[in-house]
């Protein structure tokens, strides 16, 4: 059976693999949420992670509309696991987070300064690092992350980058999506883990799940 078919076995929603992927999202995002909570010194909750195998046409709808403005922070993964990791927030949520950190008024919606953007990048770096180190410990494989790359633009445009990476392999994108919320819902965001098919197989087998 080809790799593509093993990837697409995920179409079966009752599959145990979903639970494994969901648990990965849970552990990674749990760690990242704790890091964020300490960073902004406030309580942060997370939702149960969602795992989806999506067509490209559906991908941008993950966040709402393809035209919604988001802040995306992207990392290339190398080492034993290859692929991409993206941390994405809606524009207003990113503002709240920056305001929280820099001590500005919460409702301040002025355009981001260089300093704000740099701070956001670093937040992305810290919490994605927490996510990946938890994942790395869990599967006992080495994951190296690149420096953070950031883009503030339409969701469809930002998501086109990981979508294209998937496009080289097949016609669907595997999304492990974890969402977190500050208690009053003003800071929320998504983690999207995008392993290559080969790495997906490695993650599965390291957790004792057979990929045919």
């Amino acid at each position: 059976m080809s790799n593509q078919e093993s990837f697409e076995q995920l179409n079966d929603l009752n599959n145990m693999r979903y639970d494994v992927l969901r648990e990965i999202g849970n552990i990674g995002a749990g760690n990242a949420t704790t890091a964020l909570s300490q960073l902004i010194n406030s309580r942060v909750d997370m939702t149960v992670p969602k795992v989806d195998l999506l067509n490209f046409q559906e991908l941008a709808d993950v966040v709402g509309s393809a035209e919604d403005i988001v802040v995306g922070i992207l990392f290339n993964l190398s080492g034993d696991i290859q692929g991409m990791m993206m941390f994405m927030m809606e524009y207003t949520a990113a503002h709240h987070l920056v305001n929280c950190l820099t001590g500005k008024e919460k409702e301040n919606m002025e355009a981001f300064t260089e300093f704000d953007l740099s701070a956001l990048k670093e937040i992305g770096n810290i919490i994605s690092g927490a996510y990946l180190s938890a994942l790395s410990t869990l599967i006992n494989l080495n994951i190296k992350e690149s420096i953070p790359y950031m883009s503030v633009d339409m969701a469809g445009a930002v998501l086109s980058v990981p979508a294209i990476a998937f496009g080289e392999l097949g016609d669907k994108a595997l999304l492990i999506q974890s969402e977190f919320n500050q208690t009053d819902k003003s800071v929320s965001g998504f983690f999207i883990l995008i392993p290559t098919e080969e790495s997906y197989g490695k993650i599965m087998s390291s957790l004792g799940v057979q990929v045919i």
Partner: protein
Amino acid sequence: MADLKICCSPDAITTLGLGSCVGIVLYDPIEKIAGLAHVMLPDSTQIVCNENIAKFADTAIDRLLQIMIENGASKNRMIAKIAGGAQMFAFSSENPMLCIGKRNVEASKNKLEELGIRIVAEDTGDSYGRTIEFYPETGELLIKAVGKEKKII
């Protein structure tokens, strides 16, 4: 993403949030038929899983042209407008996978040249996403981007 459609006046056709992908409009100004393809990758011959023809610049343009001719458009009158192909993240490395926007634009241009279809306007490259709308009635391509004035090419 990875899709293609045609439309006739007075309707308009749009694709939202083009990033590194390229939007290719083919247009027959006499019949007022337009086609739009949203391609993700430059070359179907370099990829193993290449059944989805709307995903690649080379195969998507071929198919779009074919569908338009079936619907009464003439290849001789056909002109093209292209947009997109941005580099969304400022990657520092030279990894060709990361400069995909540029490669998509080049591949689209090469394919159109090969078919003898003239590109009358383009808005490509740079580092921002675009939403595009094409109006077959007037032949105008409207481009919207975050924090920028609307532009018609």
